[in-house]
């Protein structure tokens, strides 16, 4: 391409034009880079946060559509939860409904969604009446084990540091905590994030406290256990409830492996989490009691 331009325009003209273009482009890029660097350095300033909220308006329609795409109207969800969920009384799916593969797939998808909503609503009714149900609307593949975006924000009463739980396959489990609250959305740092640390307690004979940390993978690590701890593979681990925000007795995972930590001072255990976060679609935010 360069050769073609040379033939067409003459080398001197082209070189001048290219030099001008690069000089002009360098000035523009320098200005843009400076702007980005100032955003990064002043990331906690109110201006940057407001700008972020404004820019989010551009992506909100998509998040809203994606959220609505698999969210039944609230009245339907509530009435579905109020109905009995026992398989004996549930009305079987009629083959007449299923006329095409697409509609069958849609029915299956709705059944799964309905099941998840029932589980979350059941959990809320039984354990957390003030919990706020939310859909997972965003997930960055590069931060797969670190953060999720949910469709509830300040307007819905979500506050910073609120613990987030979910129920999968009938089991309740700790998911993470809210780390950023915007008007209509919030970000949740998952327990699998390597920067996450939650006070935890072993259930059973080794009723001992430790700290559960993430490793940016499916598994978790329970640290700072006494070297003489009677911990066993299969022991359950729950939240200790030491802080003001996270309630006690929320299941976190099960011990799958035990070893000494690198400094040989404490025992540490690998955990399999109760909640497989790659299957999350509905979560429950536990808003603390104002009192």
């Amino acid at each position, binding site marked *: 391409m360069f050769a073609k331009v040379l033939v067409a325009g003459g080398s001197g003209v082209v070189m001048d034009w290219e030099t001008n273009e690069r000089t002009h*482009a360098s000035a523009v890029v320098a200005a843009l880079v400076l702007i980005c660097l100032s955003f990064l350095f002043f990331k906690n300033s109110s201006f940057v946060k407001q700008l*972020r909220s404004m820019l989010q308006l551009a992506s909100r329609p*998509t998040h809203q559509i994606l959220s609505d795409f698999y969210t039944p109207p609230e009245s339907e969800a509530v009435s579905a939860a109020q109905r009995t969920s026992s398989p004996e009384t549930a009305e079987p799916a009629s083959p007449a409904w299923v006329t095409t593969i697409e509609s069958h797939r849609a029915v299956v998808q709705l059944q799964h969604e309905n099941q998840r909503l029932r589980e979350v609503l059941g959990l809320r009714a039984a354990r957390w009446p003030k919990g706020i149900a939310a859909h997972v609307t965003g997930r960055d593949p590069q931060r797969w084990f670190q953060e999720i975006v949910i469709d509830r924000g300040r307007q819905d009463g979500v506050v910073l540091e609120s613990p987030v739980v979910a129920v999968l396959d009938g089991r309740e489990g700790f998911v993470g905590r809210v780390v950023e609250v915007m008007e209509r959305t919030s970000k949740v740092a998952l327990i699998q994030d390597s920067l996450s640390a939650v006070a935890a307690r072993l259930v059973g004979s080794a009723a001992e406290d430790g700290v559960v940390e993430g490793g*940016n993978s499916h598994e978790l690590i329970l640290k700072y256990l006494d070297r003489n701890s009677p911990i066993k593979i299969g022991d359950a681990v729950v939240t200790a409830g030491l802080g003001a925000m996270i309630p006690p007795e929320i299941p976190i995972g099960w011990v799958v492996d035990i070893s000494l930590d690198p400094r040989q001072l404490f025992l540490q255990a690998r955990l399999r989490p109760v909640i497989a976060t790659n299957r999350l679609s509905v979560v429950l935010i536990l808003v603390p009691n104002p009192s």
Partner: protein
Amino acid sequence: MKPFLFYVSTLLLGLWLQIVVNHFFGGSWFSLQIMLVSVIYWGLMRGPVSGAMIGFSWGLLIDSSSLGFLGLHGLLWTLVGFATGVLRRQLDESKPWTQTIFTFVMSIAYSLSLLAIERLLIAGDRSIQLASILEPLWNALLAPFVFVGLHAWERLWEMRPERR
């Protein structure tokens, strides 16, 4: 007015496509950066200034809509758009192989830079995700299709690249 509408709608379309792709296809092993490939296309077709501008705009939009620091993708995609625009005269961007290989190289450069900056900004150890390792490969494999799509989008608007 028409160029303005074209740029705004291109920005929004790119953003929405990226969000939809992340939502439906993103996984612990699959990650496709349609917007990064689009910045590369823009730089190749329209030069360093346009490449940097669109990279900056898309970068800020994706930073605000996703989970990272505001300005991180803005910074990196500005540099990607600029570098692509500067290098465009050494490449024949019409060939799919060129598109694939160039996108692969730029994606690796972007991923490594992202990792380095995140390590600087975030205290603590962040291990590398499988999705991040495979992302340049997916970007490269799908680059010819993205290029064709963007070319069709430009033809739809009758907006020809400002090539000299």
